[in-house]
């Protein structure tokens, strides 16, 4: 969506025009869904949370500062909702768990290389759920970073704003998360 059109639509929504919000939902639905899914790992749950994120965004649109980036604001709502949901599902220690040392070779990592899947299947659903399964092995705070980083459109600074953590921490977590995923996915 062109920046201008988005701004115009947000103004309309602020005035109470609901149909202007429809375009916004249509435009951002894939991204918001992807963030939620990467973090929670279940499509149905991700869809529920993503819907709720949009509804919250609509209800709180008056508090959105038009000088700021809408996507950042929206993604923050989505990540916060997802983190809340994960908290409800899992005990706290899981959220703050660190990735275990670099040596962590697991079952998947020990699979022989000839079982590697062909390139074309990267996009297949099976492959997607396999990758997602690997992501789910990471602690939640790394998952949120991975989810945002691999949308491939946000700067490190924007990610730090969304998650409200320092840029330095964002970098470290991206590096660690990516390193951990490399180990899990290198045989693919």
């Amino acid at each position, binding site marked *: 969506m062109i920046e201008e059109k988005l701004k115009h639509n947000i103004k309309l929504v602020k*005035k*109470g*025009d*609901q*149909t202007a*919000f*429809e375009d916004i*939902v*249509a435009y951002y*639905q*894939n991204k918001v*869904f*992807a963030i939620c*899914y990467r973090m929670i790992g279940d499509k149905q749950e*991700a*869809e529920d949370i*993503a*819907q709720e994120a*949009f*509804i919250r965004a*609509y*209800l709180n649109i008056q508090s959105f500062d038009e000088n700021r980036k809408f996507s950042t604001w929206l993604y923050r709502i989505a990540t916060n909702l997802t983190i809340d949901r994960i908290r409800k599902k899992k005990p706290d220690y899981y959220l703050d768990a660190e990735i275990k040392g670099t040596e962590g070779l697991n079952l998947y990592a020990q699979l022989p290389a000839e079982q590697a899947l062909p390139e074309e299947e*990267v*996009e*297949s*659903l099976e492959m*997607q759920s396999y*990758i997602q399964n690997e*992501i789910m092995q990471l602690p939640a705070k790394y998952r949120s970073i*991975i989810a945002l*980083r*691999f949308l*491939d459109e946000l700067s*490190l600074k924007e990610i730090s704003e969304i998650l409200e953590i320092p840029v330095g921490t964002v*970098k470290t977590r*991206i*590096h660690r998360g*990516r*390193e951990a*995923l*490399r180990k899990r*996915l*290198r045989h*693919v």
Partner: protein
Amino acid sequence: MKCNKEMVELMHQYLDGDITRDDEQLLRSHLQSCEACQKHFQELKRTVALVTANLELKPSNDFTRNVMAQLPKEKKRMTAKRWMKLHPMLTAAAIFFILMFSGIFSAWNQDQQLSYPKGQNLIVENDTVIVPKDVVIEDDLEVKNANVKVEGEVKGDVILINGEHLSASAGKIAGEIKEVDQVFNWMWYKLKDLVESVFSLD
């Protein structure tokens, strides 16, 4: 396989687009000489590609519809506003009709006074206009808001607006008796009258 932590760090910085020019040079020259780091770097890039390629990662088709359905009901005022924006012609037509009808209705309502042709020797008793026995009206007789009793003779039509004809055995009406007591009939009659007067040959 682990060359050194520093190089791996540079790889990540490179992948995040967060690397200085010098460090990039350093990384490049090191990658050319170190096979282990090259492999590590390839694996990282591949990981990024695998996780980023999420074309299949889409919510259900009716996602947007579901969200819209769950939003609180919009204010009525907004719906009307948007409707008017979408249908300017209909809006203009509606306004036109509202004005036109309100004009007609107010004309109808103001017109509650008894009226009948003057100077024809008619008698008015309460709400009744009487054509006396020995009076002959050559033309149409139009009476508004009163009843009519014809004891004499009317050669034309009797037109009653908001009134009724009280028949009297002695009277004689050559033309028709038209009772008009509905707004639309009245309008219709007025229109017909207008058309007739415009197109009448004589």
